[in-house]
C-alpha cells in the first residue's frame, strides 16, 4: 500500500512463518494435507487487504464514536454493518475449524497471522469475530448435536454472534463466587436469573441474535467451582415461528477508555422471570469447559497485545524517518539541515526495543499456535502430549508478555512522536489506551503470575519440555555460528529459572503464600527467557540466510535488523533474569510484609 501503516511487516510474517516456524512442515500432517503454501499466502494476502483497506480506515472513527445505549439497546458504529459481513465472508470465524462443522481446517499457525493483521487494523471490529468463534467452539466441543444445529452453525456462519458471560459485579477474577441461578424446567431448559458485567459484544445491531455462553449455578449445586455449569442463553429465543424475546436485557454500558469499537455491557437475565437457557455439556463442568474458551481468549489477547504494539511501532518508525529535528552529536552547525530523528541513537534504542517486543512477541504467539496445531493434529501421541503441556505452560507467559511489554512498546511509540504523540490528533495515544486492557481482561497479570507459579510451572514435565526446546534452539544457534556467549547466556538463564521453580516448590509447598510472594517476578523471568528463546531462533534463521550470501539489498537489511534486535534482547533484557532470580530466592519481603494500615 502507498504511504500507509502496514500494520505488520509482510516480510517479517513470511520470515516467521516459513523460516523460523516451518509452517510448510504442518502440510505433512493429514489434517492439513489438502492445503499448500499458496493457500496460506493467498489467505494472508486477502486478510491483509481487508485489514488495510476496510478495517484500518474505520479505526479512528470507531474510536471517536463509541457505541450508544438508548432505549435499552446498543447501536454500534455504523461502519460495523459493512465490516461484519466482510469479516464473515473472508472466513476468519471458521478458518481453523474442521471441515465437518463448516470450517476450512487451516492451521492455527496461519489463521493467527491473518487475525494479527485484522487486530492491528481495528481490534474492536475484529473481536466480534474472535468472540463469536470462541463461543461457537464451546458448543462444538461440549454441546449436543441439537445445540450445534440450532446455535453453533449460525454462529460460525456469522448470522448470530457470541459472547463469554462469566464476570459478575462481585465475582471478577474469583469466578467461584458467581451467583447467576439456573432452575431446571420441565421442557429440559433452565430458567436463568442473574446479572453479568463487562460482557464484550453483549449487544449490538450488526447481526440478528447474540448467544451468551454463560456460567451459572443450577439450584442445589455445591458451592465453589464444582457447582458451576455452562449455558447457552440466546438474546432472542429461536422458536418455531422465528426469534422471540428471551428476557435478556442490556442494563448498562461501560464507558471504556479504549477498545471503543466494541461495547462492554451489563447484561441481565430474567428480570421478568422469563429467560431460558440451555445446558451445554454436563452440569458442574462449566468452568472446566470455559477454560477452553478462556485459554483461546488469552492467546487472542496476547496476539492483540502484539498487534496493538505492532501498528504503533510502524507508525513511530515512519514518523522517525520523516520528522527532522536536531543534528547529530559532533555536527552542531546551525546552518546544516536537521536530520530525521531516526539518526539519533536514542530514538533507534526506542525503535529497536519496540521491534524486539513486537517481533519477539509475535514469534512466541506463533509458537503457541503451532503447539495448538501439533497438540490436536500431530501423528505421534507423544508429540501431541508434549505440545499440549508446553502450550499450557506458555499461555499465561505469552499473554502477559504481550500485554505488559506491549504497553511499554506502545508508550515508546507515543514518546517518539514527542508532544504530538501526547495529543489526540495522532494515533499512538489511542493504541496506548487500547493496549492497557490487555493486562486486565482474560485474567490480570497478577492472576497469570499466580497461575504460572502455583500450577502450570509445577505440572509434571512442563518445565523440562520447555528446557529441551530451548536447548535444541541453543545447539542450532551454535551450529549456525552465533556468538557462543549469547547461547550460553540463554542456557544459563533457563537453567536458573528451572532451578528456582524447583527450589520454591520444595521450600514452600506447605506455605503457598511465601511460595507465591514473587509470582510477578517469576512471570517476568519466564517472559524474558521465552522471548529470548524466540529471538535466538530468529537470529539463527537470519544468520543462516546471511551465510548463504547473494541476498538482495532488502533481504540483507532485513536479516541484519533481525540480528541487531536479537542482540538487543539477549544482551540488554536477558541479564535482568539473574537479579530477579536472586530476589525470588531471597524472598525479598518489602510489600509482603507491609501492613495495609502502613500505606
Amino acid at each position, binding site marked *: *500500500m*502507498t504511504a500507509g501503516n502496514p500494520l505488520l511487516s*509482510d516480510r517479517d510474517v513470511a520470515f516467521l512463518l516459513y523460516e523460523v516456524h516451518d509452517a510448510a512442515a504442518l502440510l505433512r500432517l493429514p489434517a492439513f494435507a*489438502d*492445503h*499448500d503454501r*499458496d*493457500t496460506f*499466502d*493467498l*489467505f494472508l*494476502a*486477502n486478510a491483509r*487487504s*481487508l485489514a488495510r*483497506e476496510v478495517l484500518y480506515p474505520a479505526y479512528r472513527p470507531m474510536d471517536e464514536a463509541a457505541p450508544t445505549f438508548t432505549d435499552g439497546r446498543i447501536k454500534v458504529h455504523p461502519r460495523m454493518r*459493512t465490516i461484519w459481513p*466482510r469479516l464473515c*465472508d*473472508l*472466513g*476468519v470465524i471458521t*478458518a481453523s475449524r474442521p471441515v465437518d462443522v463448516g470450517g*476450512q481446517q*487451516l492451521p492455527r499457525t496461519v489463521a493467527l497471522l491473518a487475525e494479527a493483521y485484522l487486530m492491528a487494523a481495528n481490534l474492536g471490529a475484529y473481536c466480534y469475530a474472535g468472540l463469536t468463534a470462541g463461543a461457537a467452539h464451546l458448543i462444538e466441543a461440549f454441546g449436543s448435536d441439537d445445540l450445534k444445529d440450532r446455535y453453533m452453525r449460525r454462529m460460525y456462519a456469522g448470522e448470530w454472534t457470541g459472547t463469554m458471560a462469566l464476570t459478575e459485579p462481585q465475582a471478577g477474577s474469583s469466578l467461584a463466587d458467581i451467583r447467576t441461578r439456573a432452575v431446571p424446567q420441565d421442557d429440559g431448559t433452565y430458567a436463568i436469573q442473574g446479572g453479568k458485567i463487562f460482557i464484550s459484544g453483549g449487544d449490538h445491531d450488526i447481526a440478528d441474535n447474540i448467544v451468551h455462553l454463560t456460567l451459572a449455578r443450577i439450584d442445589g449445586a455445591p458451592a465453589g467451582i464444582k457447582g458451576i455449569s455452562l449455558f447457552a442463553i440466546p438474546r432472542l429465543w429461536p422458536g418455531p415461528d422465528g426469534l422471540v424475546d428471551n428476557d435478556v436485557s442490556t442494563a448498562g454500558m461501560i464507558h471504556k477508555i479504549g477498545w471503543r469499537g466494541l461495547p462492554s455491557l451489563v447484561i441481565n437475565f430474567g428480570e421478568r422471570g422469563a429467560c431460558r437457557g440451555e445446558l451445554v455439556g454436563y452440569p458442574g463442568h462449566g468452568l472446566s469447559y470455559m477454560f477452553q474458551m478462556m485459554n483461546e481468549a488469552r492467546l487472542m489477547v496476547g496476539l492483540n497485545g502484539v498487534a496493538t504494539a505492532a501498528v504503533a511501532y510502524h507508525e513511530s518508525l515512519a514518523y522517525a524517518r520523516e520528522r527532522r529535528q536536531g543534528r547529530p552529536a559532533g555536527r552542531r552547525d546551525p546552518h546544516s539541515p536537521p536530520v530525521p530523528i531516526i539518526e539519533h541513537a536514542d530514538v533507534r534504542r526506542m525503535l529497536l526495543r519496540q521491534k524486539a517486543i513486537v517481533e519477539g512477541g509475535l514469534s512466541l504467539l506463533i509458537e503457541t499456535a503451532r503447539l495448538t496445531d501439533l497438540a490436536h493434529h500431530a501423528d505421534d501421541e507423544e508429540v501431541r502430549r508434549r505440545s499440549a503441556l508446553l502450550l499450557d505452560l506458555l499461555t499465561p507467559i505469552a499473554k502477559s508478555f504481550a500485554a505488559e511489554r506491549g504497553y511499554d512498546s506502545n508508550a515508546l511509540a507515543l514518546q517518539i512522536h514527542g508532544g504530538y504523540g501526547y495529543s489526540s490528533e495522532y494515533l499512538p495515544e489511542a493504541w496506548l489506551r487500547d493496549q492497557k486492557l490487555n493486562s486486565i481482561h482474560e485474567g490480570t497479570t497478577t492472576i497469570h503470575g499466580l497461575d504460572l507459579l502455583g500450577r502450570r510451572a509445577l505440572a509434571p514435565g512442563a518445565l523440562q519440555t520447555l528446557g529441551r526446546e530451548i536447548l535444541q534452539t541453543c545447539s542450532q544457534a551454535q551450529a549456525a555460528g552465533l556468538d557462543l556467549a549469547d547461547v550460553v547466556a540463554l542456557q544459563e538463564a533457563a537453567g536458573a529459572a528451572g532451578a528456582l521453580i524447583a527450589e520454591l516448590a520444595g521450600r514452600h509447598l506447605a506455605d503457598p503464600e511465601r511460595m507465591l510472594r514473587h509470582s510477578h517476578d517469576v512471570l517476568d523471568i519466564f517472559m524474558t527467557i521465552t522471548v529470548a528463546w524466540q529471538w535466538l531462533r530468529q537470529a539463527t534463521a537470519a544468520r543462516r540466510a546471511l551465510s548463504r550470501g547473494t541476498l*538482495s*539489498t*532488502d*533481504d540483507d537489511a532485513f536479516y541484519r535488523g533481525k540480528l541487531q534486535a536479537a542482540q538487543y534482547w539477549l544482551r540488554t533484557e536477558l541479564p535482568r533474569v539473574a537479579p530477579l532470580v536472586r530476589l525470588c530466592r531471597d524472598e525479598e519481603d518489602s510489600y509482603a510484609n507491609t501492613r495495609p494500615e502502613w500505606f
Partner: protein
Amino acid sequence: MKILVCVKRIPDPDESLKFAGGGLDYSASKWVPNAFDEYAIETALRLAEVVGGTQRLAEVIVLGIGPESQRQQLTQFLAMGADRGIIVDADPDKLDTATVSKLIAAVFKKEAADLLIAGKLSQDNEGGQVPQRVAGLLDVPQASFAATVEWDQAAKALTVGREVDDGVEVKRVPLPAVVSVDLRIVLPKSVKNGSTPATHAYQEGPRLASLKGITMAKRKPVAVLKPSDLGVAVGTNEQVVGVAAPPARKAGQKVKTVEELFEKLTKEAKVI
C-alpha cells in the same frame, strides 16, 4: 455466454523501484495481480452471477500467460469466483505486446468466447495496447476504458459507458466483443446484467477471496497450453535499451519581490 478475463502478475507497485545492471531489479519483488485485471474479474463476476440466486449466467475463464509454476495470481481470481483457468506456459520476458495479444486472441477463438474483459492497462509498463490489439486480431467490436457495463441478454449486446476526456461516451457493442475496464467499473452500481436487481449495490472495489474460495480454487480445472498449441510463434520485437530513475527534482528559487518573480516568469520560464 463465455467470458474470458486476462490476469497479469506485476511487481507490487507500492514497493520502491530497484535498479541493477542498467535495468530494473525484480529479484526481491513481491508479485501481485495487476489492479485493472482485478477490476476486470470483478466485472466478469458481476455479469455472471445473480445476486440472491444460485444461477450463473456465464462461465468465467481466467487466462494467465507466464510460467506454469507461478500461478498464484490466477488462483486468486479462481478463488474470487472464476470457474476455470488457462495458463499459456511461456516466459513473459520473451513476449512483446503483439505476441501477448496474439496468444489471447488465439485462446478466445479456441474457447469460442463471447466476451473478453481486460484491464485497461497493466500498471507496470502502462502500455495500454493489448485489449485493442486483441479486438483488431479478432475483428470484433471493442469498448475501451469502460466505467459502466449493462448486458442486454436478449439482444446479445452490451451498453458500455466509456470514460473519455470530456465525459462519458455511451456505446452499444454486439457480442462477441472486447471490453477494457477502468477504475470506476468497480463502483457499487457500475455493472448490470439484467438479472441481478438493478438496485443492488455491490461493495466498492474488487471482492476479496474468501478462505473457502481459496481452498475450492485448487479443485477448479486449470488447462496448461504451450504457445505452439495455439499456433503462435513466441518472440519479441521489443528491446529494453535501458531503464533509469528520473533525475531528482532541482531545488526551487526564492525571490525577494513580486517584480523579480514577474521578471523570471516572463523571461526565464516564459509562461506569461
